């Protein structure tokens, strides 16, 4: 008992990357919580409705999960590892993002040409914002001013002003854009184009594509860490890495089958990749660009969105 406590406190004390991952298992209908410092699953939360999209709140307290087949949004207490609310929605809720203030929550309706604005406190859809066809990935700029939507079947990214809830611009990108990722400065967005096998680099202030990077087959989403972009290539079973300044390819890293969701640890030293067919998460070292660990999760992990949170520092007595 004492040994266990000592071991536990050592883990907490040495918490350079005491992150947790919330991985949506679409086939398995649940969510695996991974303790990334310990390198293992610590909880499985039943969700239902084929969960796909995920967004962790900026403070790490809440996790929102979309169920496109169940037409709902699950609200999870991250620390308690429990679903505390289930908000019925419409259509096919897929991509999800949260305003930096914690509310509202934005949900892409895969079957409609709009984004649902959801107030988690009242469980109400407060607005529907018109965008292009099959909106999939969503991301909000760090200042909370703008929402970007990858409109898959319109080959474009929509820019939405979050004050007026109106679309203010569309930027043509590659074919069938799916994931969209904004850098920490809110300066650039990286859009993975499933059908043209490339990534569009979008300058956010000028709303222009400033670069296109060829990657592997069927890119899904881009993760960013320490000046590098990591792109999951579903058919190529690999992660393409490029330098975000030069846009030069640095490496192609073999991972599991059908790699999908990608995100960095909060300290940007690791990249986590959910492999949909392999039921595993690959852990890539950002410095060496090698897979250093593979963690088992549930069936059909997608982890589409922001799925990693820093566990809060223990309260001082």
């Amino acid at each position: 008992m004492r040994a266990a406590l000592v071991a536990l406190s050592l883990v907490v004390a040495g918490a350079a990357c005491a992150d947790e991952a919330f991985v949506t298992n679409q086939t398995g209908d649940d969510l695996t919580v991974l303790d990334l410092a310990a390198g293992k699953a610590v909880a499985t939360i039943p969700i239902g409705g084929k969960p796909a999209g995920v967004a962790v709140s900026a403070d790490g307290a809440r996790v929102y999960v979309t169920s496109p087949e169940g037409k709902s949004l699950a609200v999870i207490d991250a620390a308690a590892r429990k679903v505390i609310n289930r908000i019925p929605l419409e259509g096919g809720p897929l991509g999800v993002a949260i305003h930096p203030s914690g509310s509202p929550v934005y949900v892409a309706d895969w079957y409609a040409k709009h984004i649902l604005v959801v107030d988690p406190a009242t469980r109400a859809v407060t607005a529907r914002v018109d965008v292009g066809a099959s909106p999939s990935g969503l991301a909000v700029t760090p200042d909370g001013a703008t929402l970007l939507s990858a409109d898959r079947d319109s080959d474009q990214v929509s820019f939405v002003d979050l004050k007026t809830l109106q679309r203010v611009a569309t930027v043509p990108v590659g074919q069938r854009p799916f994931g969209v990722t904004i850098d920490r400065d809110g300066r650039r967005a990286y859009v993975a184009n499933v059908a043209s096998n490339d990534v569009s680099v979008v300058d956010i202030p000028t709303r222009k594509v400033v670069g296109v990077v060829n990657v592997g087959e069927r890119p899904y989403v881009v993760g960013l860490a320490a000046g590098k972009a990591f792109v999951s290539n579903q058919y190529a079973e690999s992660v393409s890495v490029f330098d975000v300044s030069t846009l030069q390819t640095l490496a192609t890293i073999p991972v599991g089958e059908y790699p999908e969701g990608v995100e960095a640890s909060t300290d940007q030293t690791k990249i986590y990749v959910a492999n949909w067919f392999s039921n595993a998460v690959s852990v890539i070292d950002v410095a060496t660009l090698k897979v250093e660990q593979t963690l088992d999760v549930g069936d059909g992990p997608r982890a589409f969105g922001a799925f990693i949170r820093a566990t809060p520092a223990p309260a001082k007595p």
Partner: protein
Amino acid sequence: MKFQLLAAAAALLVGFAGAAEAHGPTRQKTTQSIEINAAPDKVWTVIGNFQDMSWLPPVEKTEGSGGNDKDATRTLTLKGGATVKEQLTKYDADAKTYAYRITEVDVKVLPVTNYSSHISVKGEGDKSTVTWQGAFYRGFPNNDPPAELSDEAAIKAVSELYQAGLASVKEKVEKGS
């Protein structure tokens, strides 16, 4: 088996499942395997040629080009006349595995879209295991699909096709035909 039964209906070509076309929000998967009482090399001689899918019961004819090189193509003609077009995406004879995609099929023949597949042979001595896995979306790209184009229908059709194919490989190899 739908692949076989519905082949006759293939004259009603209504639409093709091309690469990366519109699809539902939930990709499906199935993995089927079978143990065969034969050496892996012997099993590979039956299934290792992308240009010959005669081991799959509904297939009457395989025509194609590019041999076993990446991007090789084949057209399967099924009993009843329906066709399925496929493309080889990976081929590794040493590891005894290859992967391919359907580039064109009517959902009335196989109720799936955006289909990709892997097949591999592993084993030692006189025992082999063939594993066949597929990833695909249901035949209906929009919400609230009809029963025959649902997720369940897609999984059932592909799983049964694989089971029939693997049973046929086992029979061919073990009989030495």
